[in-house]
């Protein structure tokens, strides 16, 4: 059984990012990049399924500039067997990524597609869901537990009220949440082995996908700085302030 895992190259989660001075976006020049943490969890889950014998091959896929090769090498160092890079310098939004993944799915015919639930740079939380809709597969999002059986997969989802377990007919799309697993540390020997694993490079044109952005970012600003709190004397004053100052009632 083949598993496809989609990974995204984002600014390292430890870095405190800042808004560009002109408000056009985030400052990303010269910052350390890394695999999106939720994607790492997705790769880890896929590799564990292979190690348990439930899967035969794990293929990692990423879209973006040439530097995404590093991200794919990390995925292969974690245990992915080979990888695919859809190389483009264009601005890729979730719908475009979902369409590209749909084309890859048509080519590779996996039984499961794993993604991270969302990327830490845009927090869109859309790609997995859009992909499932485009290819008409069932989806198990925010997965904190995955149990593969014959022909179906049981996914325990983290939802607002607690946990929900759904059974999906394979093939299916699953997006990983934080508590699904703890990704392994990559070892030096595995990094060295990963260098020799195959990586295929494609362009969006090769897949016949229109990746033009549908959304335009108008402005990015810092959140307003925290103001000092105030103590109120009684409930009457609280209600008055909520009405007149906070304007929420």
């Amino acid at each position: 059984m083949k598993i496809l895992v989609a990974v995204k190259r984002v600014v390292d989660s430890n870095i405190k990012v800042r808004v560009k001075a002109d408000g056009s976006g985030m400052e990303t020049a010269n910052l350390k990049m890394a695999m999106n943490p939720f994607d790492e969890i997705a790769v880890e889950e896929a590799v564990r399924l292979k190690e348990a014998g439930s899967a035969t091959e794990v293929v990692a896929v990423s879209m973006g500039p040439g530097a995404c090769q590093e991200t794919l090498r990390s995925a292969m160092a974690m245990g992915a067997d080979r990888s695919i890079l859809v190389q483009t310098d264009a601005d890729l939004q979730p719908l475009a990524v979902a369409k590209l993944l749909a084309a890859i799915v048509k080519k590779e015919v996996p039984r499961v597609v794993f993604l991270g639930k969302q990327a830490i740079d845009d927090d869109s939380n859309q790609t997995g869901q859009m992909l499932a809709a485009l290819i008409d597969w069932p989806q198990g999002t925010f997965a904190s537990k995955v149990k593969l059986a014959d022909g179906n997969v049981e996914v325990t989802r983290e939802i607002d009220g607690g946990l929900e377990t759904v059974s999906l007919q394979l093939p299916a799309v699953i997006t990983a949440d934080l508590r699904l697993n703890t990704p392994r540390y990559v070892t030096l020997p595995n990094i060295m082995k990963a260098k020799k694993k195959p990586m295929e490079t494609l362009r969006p044109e090769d897949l016949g996908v229109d990746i033009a952005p549908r959304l335009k970012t108008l402005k990015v600003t810092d959140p307003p700085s925290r103001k000092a709190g105030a103590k109120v004397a009684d409930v009457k004053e609280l209600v008055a302030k909520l009405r007149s100052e906070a304007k929420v009632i």
Partner: protein
Amino acid sequence: MEFDVVVVGGGPAGLAAAIRVKQLAAETGADVSVCLIEKGSEIGAHILSGAVMDPRGLNELLPNWKARGAPLNTPVTEDRFQFLTRRGSWRLPNSLLPACFHNEGNYVISLGNLCRWLGQQAEALGVEVYAGFAGAEVLYDDKGAVKGVATSDMGIGKDGKPTDAYQRGVELHAKYTLFAEGCRGQLGLQLEARFNLRERADPQVYGIGIKELWEVKPERHKPGLVVHTAGWPLSNDTYGGSFLYHMENRQVAVGLVVGLGYKNPHLSPFEEFQRYKTHPSIRPFFEGGRRIGYGARAITAGGFQALPKLVFPGGCMIGDDAGFLNGARIKGSHTAIKSGMLAAEALVPALAKGRGRDELEAYPAAYRTSWMHDELYRARNFKPWMSGNMLFGTLMFGVDQQVFRGRAPWTLHLKADHTKLKKASECTPIDYPKPDGVLTFDRLSSVFLSNTHHEENQPAHLTLKDSGVPIKINLELYDAPETRYCPAGVYEIARDPDGGNPRLQINAANCVHCKTCDIKDPTQNIVWVAPQGGEGPVYSGM
């Protein structure tokens, strides 16, 4: 895993050595395998420097660096040297500045960005660069020669036992191992002890450099402006001074170096740096700007007299692991690069002759006839003169340089930093102003900007030789100086609600790997070892 050469540390020295080995091997058609490990999560993540670089070393290593896109984009356009007093300043005319303070032909750079670029050059030449792996242990063969290093185990819990994420470190074996960990490298210290490398050297002395990166308003920005100050806020008996360098992209690198031979345990280098920024001739640069980076690192200051023996069977020390920084010029990256090159130039012919695991005597021999040796020799009396009264020392060093041209018929000597701390009761506490959150900041919000991170569930990498000393000696006699000199707020004295039961609390996760505690602890009770690889600060453009 077997290699011809293993390099520990991805700074300018390590990268230059790796690049030079590959260049020389290519010339003779030899196949020399080079493996470089770096404890930061990427090359450059742990690099912090002013910096105004003398391109001399880089010119020799990669003469076409400009065409290859090396990030040397801001040539120095103006040098200013000022003595600050509390309210005023006076500028030393450039004609009176000794040659070592002139910066024509030099570049204002981010050393981190340069190292990242050097890393790419190294990989293009076939060097295997592995970031995120710390050299934890030196390995010896049965003859006692260095045979390589072992990387740290990952995933060991706070209790010292393997967790679910445990991955054993790997042994990297080499014919020659180059140690390029930078100032106060832990493996370097072990090698010095084992092979008695400091037998004929003065003790190394250090400074702590605390640096911030600012984005300033266009009208305050003068690319290529280099400002150095001495005097306020440091007292006359404390070695140190500030740097303020204007780079590209409206960025200004600013920092304070405080000599770690300071005597007053109430001194906080971090607070001195914060109040320095409030000086009337400094603060205008930062009006309307915003702080975008923070970090700190100890630097070697001993120079010529403090250099240990550079070689031992199986390896050698390069860069500031040995201590090639020129304190008088406060420049070390050009000598770091050169030292890496000299080691490579000794190593490759030795490998060709089938040698390995022996002493590369050609490396120190080449050092002795190099421009590096000449430069360090002529600057050798700088730190000793500056270790006493700064004003008198400045005068005497001026004489040393202008009259004797650096070849005075005497060589002064150095005393270890940690021996100089006076008792708290003998010194005046210093009343530092509170941070305003706009120009001056507190330590915790500063550490935040260093992006430092460590897995909480691992053994503390800051260890105490004697657990009783922090209270019995450090607190009782010196009022816990570690709570002040650490630029990251790692050390705190925790107490019960009634103020009793003091104990030293080590917030190891805050550490920015500066090594100051390892240097300045009065009884050398604190030992810094590398935490598991890939952690610590993630500096950007520093």
